[in-house]
């Protein structure tokens, strides 16, 4: 036996290469995002609009095919103030990650909020997308840099997720 310490552990590198495919519904959605258009999909049974769409209504278990164009205005359904940095991301803490419901959709998606006073962010707050310049648009939701508060009345909790694409007048 060696004079070195006995082996008690190994480093086992497992590296596998894949070619990931987005799926038909996400691909349609991302193709529209590249053009600066937000689209959801409506369930033929319960009529809920999913955004971003995954091709099925998780509640009813049926394909969602009807595409619905949404506004880039949304309502804060929930949020958290994050105090830790995102690795390799220029966003500096503290920053806000929010569950937002786009006008015309019924279910929330996750995005960043900025140009806001963190301590003043609240459920029911109205926000709008701040887009990157069009020439930088890609197949990605970070075509929208973040959402910022807009000067519209708050949405009562029982109305969140029920705003039409036409918007919220209060």
């Amino acid at each position, binding site marked *: 036996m060696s004079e070195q310490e*006995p082996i008690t552990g*190994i*480093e086992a590198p497992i590296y596998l290469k894949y*070619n*990931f*495919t*987005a799926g038909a519904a996400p691909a349609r959605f991302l193709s529209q995002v590249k053009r600066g258009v937000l689209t959801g999909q409506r369930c033929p049974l319960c009529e809920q609009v999913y955004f971003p769409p995954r091709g099925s209504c998780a509640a009813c278990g049926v394909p969602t095919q009807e595409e619905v164009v949404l506004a880039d205005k949304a309502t804060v359904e929930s949020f958290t103030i994050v105090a830790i940095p995102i690795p390799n991301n220029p966003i500096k803490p503290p920053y806000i990650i929010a569950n937002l419901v786009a006008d015309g959709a019924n279910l929330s998606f996750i995005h960043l909020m900025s140009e806001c006073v963190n301590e003043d962010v609240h459920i029911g707050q109205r926000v709008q997308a701040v887009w990157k310049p069009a020439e930088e648009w890609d*197949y990605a939701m970070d075509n929208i840099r973040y959402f910022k508060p807009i000067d519209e009345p708050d949405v009562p909790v029982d109305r969140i997720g029920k705003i039409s694409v036409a918007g919220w007048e209060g």
Partner: protein
Amino acid sequence: MSQPEILNQAFELGYTYTRSTGPVVGRFLTELRDRNIVGIKASDGRVVVPPMEYDPDTAEELSEFVSVGQEGEIVSWAWIKEPREAHPSEQPFAWAMIKLDGADVPMIHWVRADGESEVSTGARVRAVWADETIGFMTDINGFELV
């Protein structure tokens, strides 16, 4: 409905796992680092290389290590004429089940050969050691035909 495009993204899914070896695998790998190969005696007396912690027939805990030779005999083999990127050799080679001298159970490793016709069941092979041994299965950098 808009026409779906096919959106692909190549990616590498990678983790380096840290695994505890325990006394049996650890002993085998420690010996490999010293350029020795050890097996373990199963309940029925068969020498198993690389050593197993428990007997597959009786589930008995095994502990009697046995040094085995660095040469052995090919029990079966497969010829790789087009190695895959992950494979241990860029040149065509054979995967083989090799019964080392003093062992009763073949182990799986790879064999260097210039061509398929060089390899045969029953052929004698010898372990080739890596330039630097670290206590890992690849310390044996393949086998060569004797």
